[in-house]
């Protein structure tokens, strides 16, 4: 059955499905109960499932993730919400030293299937610490899986796939796309959450994007068509692991690759993708892999954030450079 819904509503519906089908699952976070979360992603779920499964937690991110680890050790499957990207750092130690390593430290005996939902990214005209993209900091940590949907259908299914995964999953939600409407087929599961997807086929160059920038990449591909360039767009979907096979296959066909993310270019996932693709498809490349990302600065003040964020023009400029090489 196909329904039109916003990306936000698709996550809500996905969470509803998780709570309905797994009685060991529960939601926890700041303001997620009565209020339904600052973005209302958990709206209405406390009424349906009760305070013991939709828990308004005290205000402490280390406590939220740390108690979720404890619950998981007892056989529960918590899905916790961190209110904003820039607020995850008090929980950084719990995520990287505890959650990520529990399976390895216990020699595979213990699993901690915790899902951490984090609204991320900028472009919403907000104040500091509300617009960040910290995904690379987590991708560098073995033991975690990191996924991010870019559309409603994926959001509905990927949150469920995250919940059923035995490894800890960080689920980055592209907050500026919460209100993006799309068709959700609740009868047909999305592609495996840990695979990339070609969302627009093309022959002349490849753009890899994820989360909030996928619609931008698609728009850039449309614009490039006016110049007679056929651009393939890949929605990465999974940031750890990264589906290098899908990217490699595309680049072997197109010969050119642009990787874009809102996170700073330096030390970002674009660098990892560039290096891997250079190794895997060196002889297919017609130009160096180019990156279009944020600058090496704290996320800027909102009045100038549009000059910081990758947009259609920056992608077209990068395509020009790639084709000119």
């Amino acid at each position, binding site marked *: 059955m196909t329904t039109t819904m916003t990306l936000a509503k698709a996550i809500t519906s996905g969470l509803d499905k998780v709570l309905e089908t797994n009685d060991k699952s*529960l939601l926890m976070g700041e303001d997620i109960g009565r209020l339904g979360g600052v973005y209302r992603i958990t709206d209405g779920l406390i009424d349906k499932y009760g305070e*013991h499964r939709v828990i308004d*937690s*005290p205000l*402490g991110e*280390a*406590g939220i*993730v*740390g*108690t*979720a*680890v*404890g*619950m*998981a*050790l*007892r*056989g*529960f499957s*918590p899905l916790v919400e961190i209110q904003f990207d820039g607020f995850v750092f*008090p929980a950084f*130690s*719990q995520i990287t*030293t*505890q959650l990520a*390593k529990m*399976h*390895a*430290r*216990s*020699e*595979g*005996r*213990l*699993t901690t*299937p915790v899902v951490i939902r984090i609204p991320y990214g900028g472009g919403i005209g907000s104040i500091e610490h509300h617009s960040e993209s910290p995904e690379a900091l987590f991708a560098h940590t*073995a*033991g975690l*899986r990191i996924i991010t949907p870019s559309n409603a259908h994926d959001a509905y299914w990927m949150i469920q796939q995250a919940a059923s*995964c*035995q*490894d800890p999953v960080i689920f980055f939600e592209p907050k500026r796309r919460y209100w993006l409407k799309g068709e959700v087929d609740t009868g047909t599961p999305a592609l495996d959450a*840990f695979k990339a997807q070609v969302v627009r086929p093309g022959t002349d160059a490849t753009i890899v994007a994820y989360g909030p920038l996928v619609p931008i990449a698609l728009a850039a591909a449309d614009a490039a068509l006016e110049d007679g360039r056929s651009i393939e767009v890949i929605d990465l979907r999974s940031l*750890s*692991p*990264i*589906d*290098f*096979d899908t990217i490699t296959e595309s680049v072997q066909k197109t010969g050119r690759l642009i990787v874009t993310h809102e996170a700073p270019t330096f030390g970002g996932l674009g660098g990892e993708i560039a290096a891997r693709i250079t190794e895997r498809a060196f002889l297919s490349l017609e130009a160096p892999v180019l990156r279009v990302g944020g600058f090496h600065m704290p996320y800027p003040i909102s009045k100038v954030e549009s000059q910081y964020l990758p947009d259609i023009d920056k992608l077209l400029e990068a395509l020009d450079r790639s084709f000119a090489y």
Partner: protein
Amino acid sequence: MTRAATEATEPDLIQILTPDGQRQSHETYDAYLGDVDDDMLRGFYRDMALTRRFDQEATALQRQGQLCLWVPLRGQEAAQIGSGRATRRSDYIFPTYREHGVALTRDVSFSEMLRLFRGISGGGWDPRENNFHMYTMVLAAQMPHAAGYGMALNMEQRGWDEARRAKEGNAVVAYFGDGSSTEGETHESMVFASSFNAPVVYFCQNNQWAISVPFEVQSKVPLVNRAAGYGMPGVRVDGNDVLAVLAVTRWALEHARSGKGPVLIEAVTYRLGAHTTADDPTKYRMSEEEAQWAPKDPLIRLETYLRDNNLVDDTFFEQLSADADAMAAKVREDAMAFPVPPLAKSFEQVYAEAHPLIQEELAWHLEYEAGFADAAEGEH
């Protein structure tokens, strides 16, 4: 740093066995010692002596270069045996990295425990077998886990009345130290546990020193006073008195188990040795202080009590000493014989589910290593 402000609010110290081995009665806690007979008393001494002997052997193994590190517990045996023996096997324990005595009460094999320190495992034992979690090196990281585990127990026990909870319910013990008491996660854990009435007993072994920093730097007030700030009861107990620790922990577990929420216990003890084998206490504390604590040794006072009451004779100690030596020899032998798992094993343990990067890197690693084997063969 002044102590004047804190002395005014100095809380009671629960004590059953005085440092000179005299048993006192206590109106609240005697009720929690009703079943303690002569055999149990001898058993507690035996537990403490075996733990100390193990600790001594592990320290020696480290000094001989056989362990990466060792974390001695000498002086804290009563706090650990008393609290560990108060738990039910179905209760879950989150230790720090120094709970070797608690481990003994949970039947975690001493040999297995050395796997972590020998550098052949990131954990060492199966936490599920003994409900005794892995050691945690990141200070206080285990504290919110304990609160969450307790919250999970509450979910399982929803709708149970107090009587059923007291009988069948489980509880959690979160061990920590005076140093960890400062960590934010300790605070957050206590807030969560208190707000959600989680059945958690917070057991602090205040051994007076966080490596080289004295307790006064961690807190201007006695640690137990903090309990009031979280809305939970707090009890201060002589941590070198195995009977008092047993009684107080039993009371606390009963309180937590029956649904009344968490409890904080401060067991006042003293780390007679170094923080770890990498530490040198002569650089930061006076030998006079160590001399002051030496007569309060938990083993000495129980030995005095046992001898004064004719519950043991020399044969008991001779036999125990022989058993302890045999145990130590076995532990040493086991530790030296542990096979070193290949790095390939580590790849398998990173994720629970198949992961393409792991598979790719493992394949590369195996091929690379195999190249050396082929080269070696070629030389013959």
